[in-house]
């Protein structure tokens, strides 16, 4: 007799949590080692152009950079276990507050871009499959090709030049209006915070600023979702049960939306899960162009100045977000397809 479903799911979750911890530990060791063995001297950079060797040495000791590498790693992990993400030697401020400031900005951008990708990509894929080889299909496939081919940073600049410059209500850059007051911080996502505080003016303001950057970031995922949905829909539409449904007179719209879409969404779910990680780590160019104060710019600045502690923090936080997204994807799989059972 098989184990109960709930016990299997619990075992699955425990095993995944243990694996997540192992993955993040490995990530921390790898990142720490690579960052510290590369020849660099962020302390010298932070001390300034006229600092004496004594002043540099003093600063190095202050930040613990004179300790052996393993000691620095242990100190860092011990502090991290207590919620202390360390301190940036170049920025001279704690990394934790920086992460809590920048990560939600990127998360909001990524989530909205994925929302665009799904809400436009699925209908586009369905239309493409339904009107196979006719002009809607050709147009949709051309759009998909453009979406995966065009670099997001190029598109960002083109959209700035055309839309933002020409249309007054589309801002050129930024995350929120420079004069207006940002929503009361709860989650750090302006749209969510505005809705939670019933601040609809702030909500629409946040959407206005999200529009262009999220559109740029969404195109690659949108194109991939559309292509995946098209392919899966075409495969499902050729199956016997669909033929039977048509034979008994079920309307085509119902066949597409009720009997085909759910079965075609599993691969799309996989794509979204993958694109979450891809977009989270690949948002830096779009953030840069639209002056979006996210984790991408923070990470690039830290990398260019060899500021190890913020780099570690970004890597661990991003890694955590990606493994959690993968876990969520697997759980949604089980919810969508009753044939899938984890053990």
């Amino acid at each position: 007799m098989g184990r109960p479903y709930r016990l299997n799911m619990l075992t699955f979750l425990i095993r995944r949590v243990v694996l997540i911890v192992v993955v993040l530990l490995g990530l921390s060791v790898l990142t720490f080692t690579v960052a510290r063995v590369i020849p660099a001297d962020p302390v010298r950079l932070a001390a300034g152009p006229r600092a004496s060797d004594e002043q540099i040495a003093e600063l190095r000791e202050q930040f613990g950079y004179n300790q052996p590498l393993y000691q620095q790693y242990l100190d860092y992990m011990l502090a991290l276990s207590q919620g202390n993400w360390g301190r940036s030697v170049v920025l001279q401020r704690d990394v934790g507050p920086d992460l809590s400031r920048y990560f939600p900005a990127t998360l909001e951008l990524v989530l909205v871009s994925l929302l665009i990708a799904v809400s436009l990509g699925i209908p586009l894929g369905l239309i493409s499959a339904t009107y196979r080889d006719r002009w809607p299909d050709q147009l949709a496939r051309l759009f998909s090709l453009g979406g995966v081919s065009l670099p997001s940073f190029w598109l960002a600049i083109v959209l700035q030049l055309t839309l933002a410059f020409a249309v007054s209500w589309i801002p050129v850059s930024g995350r929120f209006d420079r004069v207006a007051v940002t929503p009361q911080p709860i989650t750090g996502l302006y749209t969510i915070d505005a809705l939670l505080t019933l601040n609809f003016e702030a909500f629409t303001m946040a959407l206005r600023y999200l529009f262009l950057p999220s559109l740029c970031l969404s195109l690659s995922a949108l194109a991939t979702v559309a292509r995946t949905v098209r392919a899966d829909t075409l495969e499902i539409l050729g199956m016997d049960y669909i033929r039977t449904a048509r034979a008994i007179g079920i309307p085509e719209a119902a066949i597409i939306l009720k009997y085909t879409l759910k079965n075609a969404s599993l691969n799309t779910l996989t794509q979204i899960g993958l694109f979450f990680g891809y977009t989270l780590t690949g948002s830096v160019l779009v953030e840069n162009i639209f002056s979006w104060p996210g984790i991408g710019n923070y990470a690039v600045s830290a990398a260019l100045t060899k500021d190890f502690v913020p780099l570690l923090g970004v890597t661990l936080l991003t890694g955590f977000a990606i493994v959690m997204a993968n876990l969520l994807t697997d759980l949604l799989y089980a919810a969508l397809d009753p044939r899938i059972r984890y053990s």
Partner: protein
Amino acid sequence: MMNTFKRRMFPLLMVVALLVVGVLQPVAAQGERSLTVGSLVELYTIDPAVGFDQAIGSSLKQFYDALFRYVGNPPEVTAWLADSYSVSDDGLKYTITLRSEAVFHDGSPVNADAVVYSAERLLRVGQGAAGLFTGVLSPGSTVAIDATTVEFTLDQPYGPFPDILTWLFIVNPAVVEANLGDDDGVTYLTDHEAGSGPFTMGRWQAAELYEFVAVDDYWRGWPSENHPSSVIRLVMREASTRRLSIESGEVDMVDWMSVDDLVALEGVNGIISAPGPTLTVYDVKMNTVEGPTADPALRRAIAYAVDYDSMQAIWGGRSTSLTGPLPPSLAISSEPMYHLDLDAARAALAESAYPDGVDLEYVYVTGLEDERRTGLVLQDSLAEIGINVTITAIPWADAVASFADPATAPDLFPLYSGTAFADPDNYLWASFHSSMAGNWTNPGHYANAEVDALLEQARAETDAAVRSDLYGQAEALILADAPNLFIAATPEDHIIGPRIPNYADNYSPVMGSMEDFYFYEVAS
């Protein structure tokens, strides 16, 4: 069924309609006299004892006051918190009387104790501008004579002492002491101010937006009733975004713009480029200790082979040629020692250890287009005398790390020398004194005992004519050694919109003074 569909869709359609209407609402108008700056850089700190660059210096001048301040072009050291001052005959004691009406933002007086506290703190924290005081002022040498009189006792006479006092910003001791933490208030002052300046802090969103709010009853008063009511500094890392923003009028000033943008936007929609010329010296440092460029004859050959006219073309003719290591307004030599002369170059090369040519590496900072173009000109120029130049781009942090050891320092490296203060000592000490070898101001590890002695003598001299003569002798030795290729005083990189009509009248080419919002008027 259709009715059911309509009933289900109606709420969704209403939400969409509300969103569309909301999104199409015009952006809230900013204050009439509020200015906006689109800047490449973020203000990672506004602690006067830590921050030391153009953007942070500009911000410090708004939040804080110093004893002296640079004003105008050419920049003049102007008494600011100081009402008057005297110097002892031996040049060791500076006695400064403070303006009695100066107050911090909390209303407490800016007194001599605050000056002592600020000086001691700067030396104690030991970062940023503290380097300017190394060998000049030691801890414990600043004392309060009475409530409004402070006395500095220098380690040795130092002619430009009032100049470097422009970087001693006076902090409110009570505020700092109340927020000391375990790092002398460094964490607190990273994003809080404790000053007496014309602006106080508004919204402060790191890497995004920094707001300076005018103090209407600023103790010095305002030069214009149309002064900015606030200044909002936005971080815009992408040059195309900054250009679009100034062109569309979204911002009133942008920085770090290329010459191409300056030329393209001049006159468009009332836009001007900052007048310049700057006092920023741009030269190519050569490694004087390791590698082929350790050979002085080779360095002189390189100096004679460079096409200096092509170098000026990098800035579209807007730069000013250098005659030596000093910017034009401070220059001692009126004619450049080195100019394009291939015969002289070949003769010098023949004297060197590399008569048949040599391979050299030119290293520049990733993303700096002017430096990349400099490398291309060098590559082309030096090929004429058989020197093969390879060009490598690296991040600035990597470059700074490589400077420490002459074995890893590059053969050729371009560098902008910022103008912390407008005095020959600012340039010559940082770039050519042996104590600075390996710092990022002297990456070529240049050291010459005679030059050291002259520079030490000159900075301790208070007579301007004697100083000029000493610097002239030092310059001659430096030029003979040819440690650098002296290229240009670079043009200003700020672009100004039409809402700041008096920017040019109040332009001062000293680091931190190119955005001195206190002096600006805002056009209606």
